[in-house]
């Protein structure tokens, strides 16, 4: 199977700190891959490189055969890569539906003038996008909060809305940065189900960073482990769990004895 996303020898340094160092792995179409590792292992930096927030000094990132290493983030988004953030980045004063509609902006073709007219193409486009957004509302079961300002929602629901906004892009690749951070068990279970359903329904390729090992082991096809910027292991959840290097990175050397 050819890879949808190839990460080749990617390195990124901030001053003297080597955040990511020569990391290489492939992600096949329709996979769920988890990136795990202790704090400061370089997980978020790696995602930022893929989504174009940072550009790696060395290495290449190839999406669907095209080198996207030097592209800016809007260009990468236009090629079908969407993401959520570790710290929620919603427009707090806007309603949930409006936040999701924003996720459609890449697909909106009308200019300012045309959109201002109620009739004609502006309206048709608005209706078409609203339909997509309503499908996502239905999918994520957030009907009851449709018109609530995003900022007034509990944390777990905000995370769900953020996932919705990323989905509104109809992405090929979805990057999720700690989608379950700070959630209780029930919210985590819901989120895990939504991630699996997204993958199932739209065959979206998903790369996620997550700290909850239970979740990671349950939902990912493959796991990539980073420590101090380097990839130390890669494989199925079971393989990774049994890997001594991984145990060492997480628990320290003493636990090995």
């Amino acid at each position, binding site marked *: 199977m050819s890879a949808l996303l190839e990460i080749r020898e990617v390195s990124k340094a901030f001053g003297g700190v080597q955040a990511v160092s020569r990391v290489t792995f492939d992600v096949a179409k329709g996979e769920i891959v988890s990136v795990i590792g202790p704090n400061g292992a370089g997980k978020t930096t790696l995602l930022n490189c893929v989504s174009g927030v940072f550009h790696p000094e060395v290495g290449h990132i190839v999406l669907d055969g095209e080198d996207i290493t030097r592209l800016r983030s809007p260009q990468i988004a236009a090629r079908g890569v969407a993401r959520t953030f570790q710290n929620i980045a919603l427009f707090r004063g806007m309603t949930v539906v409006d936040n999701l509609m924003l996720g459609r902006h890449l697909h909106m073709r009308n200019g300012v003038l045309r959109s201002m007219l109620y009739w004609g193409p502006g309206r048709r486009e608005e209706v078409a996008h*609203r*339909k997509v957004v309503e499908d996502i509302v239905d999918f994520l079961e957030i*009907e*009851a909060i449709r018109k609530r300002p995003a900022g007034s929602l509990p944390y777990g629901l905000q995370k769900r809305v953020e996932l919705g906004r990323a989905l509104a892009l109809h992405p090929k690749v979805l990057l999720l940065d700690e989608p379950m951070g700070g959630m209780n068990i029930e919210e985590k279970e819901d989120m895990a189900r939504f991630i699996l*359903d997204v993958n199932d329904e739209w065959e979206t390729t998903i790369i996620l960073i997550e700290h909850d090992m239970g979740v990671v082991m349950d939902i990912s096809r493959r796991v990539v482990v980073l420590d101090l910027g380097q990839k130390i292991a890669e494989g199925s959840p079971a393989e990774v769990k049994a890997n001594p290097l991984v145990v060492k990175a997480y628990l320290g050397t003493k636990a090995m004895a």
Partner: protein
Amino acid sequence: MVETTLPQYLLRNARTFPRRPALREKEKGIWQEWTWADYLAHVRAIALGLVSLGFQRGDKLALLSDNRPQLYAAMVAAQAVGGVPVPLYQDSIARELQYVIDHADARFVYAEDQEQVDKVLDLKANLPKVERVIYDDPKGMRHYTDPFLMSLERLEAQGRDLDREQPGRFETLVAAGRAEDLALVCYTSGTTGAPKGAMISQSNLVHAIQGILEVEHYAPTDEVLAYLPAAWVGDTFWSLAASLMVGFAVNCPERPETVLENLREIGPHHIVAPPRIWENLVSTVQVKLGDASWVKRRLAGWLMPIGEEVARCRMDKQPLSLRLRLLNAVGEHLVFGPLRDHLGFRRTRYAYTGGAPLGPEIFLFFRAIGINLKQVYGQTEIAVSCVQRDGDVKLGTVGRPFPNVEVRLTEAGELIARGPAMFLGYYKNPEATAATIKDGWLHSGDAAMFDANGHLVVIDRVKDVTALANGTKFAPQFIETKLKFSPYIKEAVAFGLGQDYVAVMINIDMENVGKWAERRQIAYTTYADLAQKPQVYDLIHGEVRRVNRDLPETTRIRKYVLLHKELDPDDDEITRTRKVRRALVARKYAEIVDTLFSDAGTAAVTTVVTYQDGRQATLKTEIRIETVETARDLVPA
């Protein structure tokens, strides 16, 4: 042709007004409509689909679904081929589901979505009689390959194929329906023992609605909202039977969480709700009012008592003074009308409460803002038997019987009734049937009396009316209902049998007490923590004292405790319709109840918690017992 079964009424409606709306559901943010012709088309397809699977007269179809057009279509479809729908509570846990599906001998199960399908699949090994599970919403089930499963879409396609091969088959099946056919098996949770399946015939359903229609006026252009669980027989009466017989439209909410919003959008012409919902609505209004601007609070504070006085005068049939009339008109414009509109009752001609007594304060609140709230009395076994008549509503009564129901009291004060709506008996349970129907009379188990005007007053369950040690009789439910009027109290259980005084176990209302605590910057973590805060005890203390003022001196609440845990239907403590299982609660919390009648100031509680992975842990907590001032202390000096 004279219609005697619900499917026959459906054929009539689809013939006489095919383009009028029959069912609506809000989906993707828009109200999607089924006309009567659409309704019939779906029922026809599902019915013949079931036939193609071998479903026969008398077979049972168990249903697990929220209120959706497809659910109602599936119920009528089962009846159309002479089968019997058995609606189940969709929030039932596995053990309850297994018992009911198996006991009902269901050959097929209709499950709304993945969540419900998963529940049935988990039980598959213990459900030998079930042949097929039919599901509606395929989301998340792309990789389910179990041949046990079948989508509603495919079932309907099979049905349409059969319809093409054998045109007229459906009509023949429907025409074969008889009034005496079993139309529904409705499992009543009951506050004691295992659920019992009440067998209700087509004739029962039709006569029950005819009885109501002799008194109340429903129009084919009316709208109602179907939001109560389909497993509760009332939903079958209003959303299925009455809609089919009268021809009014039934609207299904988008999700259970959006009911209040959808209620406002639809503005139903009649609505049935258990006391719990009315209590919630009052709490919501009170909390919102607390957050409203100063002007609004003052206006409501000034005009609400006027509205209540007017409502009281009208109930007592006393003339209104000019002052009241003027102020009421002001209130109508400034407070009552807007409030009605805000709640979604702008068009409501009839609002009913039933199932359990409703606190008089709550009753008065709705009548004060101009909603025609009326108490009904009924049982699964004999439908709705009494209603308060328009212009003849009195506090504390359940009105008078419908013309086609006979109601009497036994010498022991138990209410008995008979009429054409009386059920056929309990499914596969002749002992329970014999204990309920004696000499052709349905024994309700409710203690009741007729007041001077012939209005029926239900006191409590016969077995629950108890007496203190000194012989003073009291009805626990009466005290509990009064307590539950407080927005801060969610449940209450009163004890006192053979004791010197009445003591109460109270569940605080997490949402409202939580908000109250937030406003006062009281930090709390969990329900148990919040319930034990001294400030919360102070808050509830005030509420208990208020209730005590209205109680006869001999049965005032002497001690109470704020329970560390909410009573939960999953733990069998209350039924899914939120009736407290008194005996079980008394047994389970015996250590607390004992302490309530001792001199101790705290009760030690041990709870066994079962985690999701099956591990168990024992938690030990101390909870505070509070004593209320004696009657003498309450008299102002």
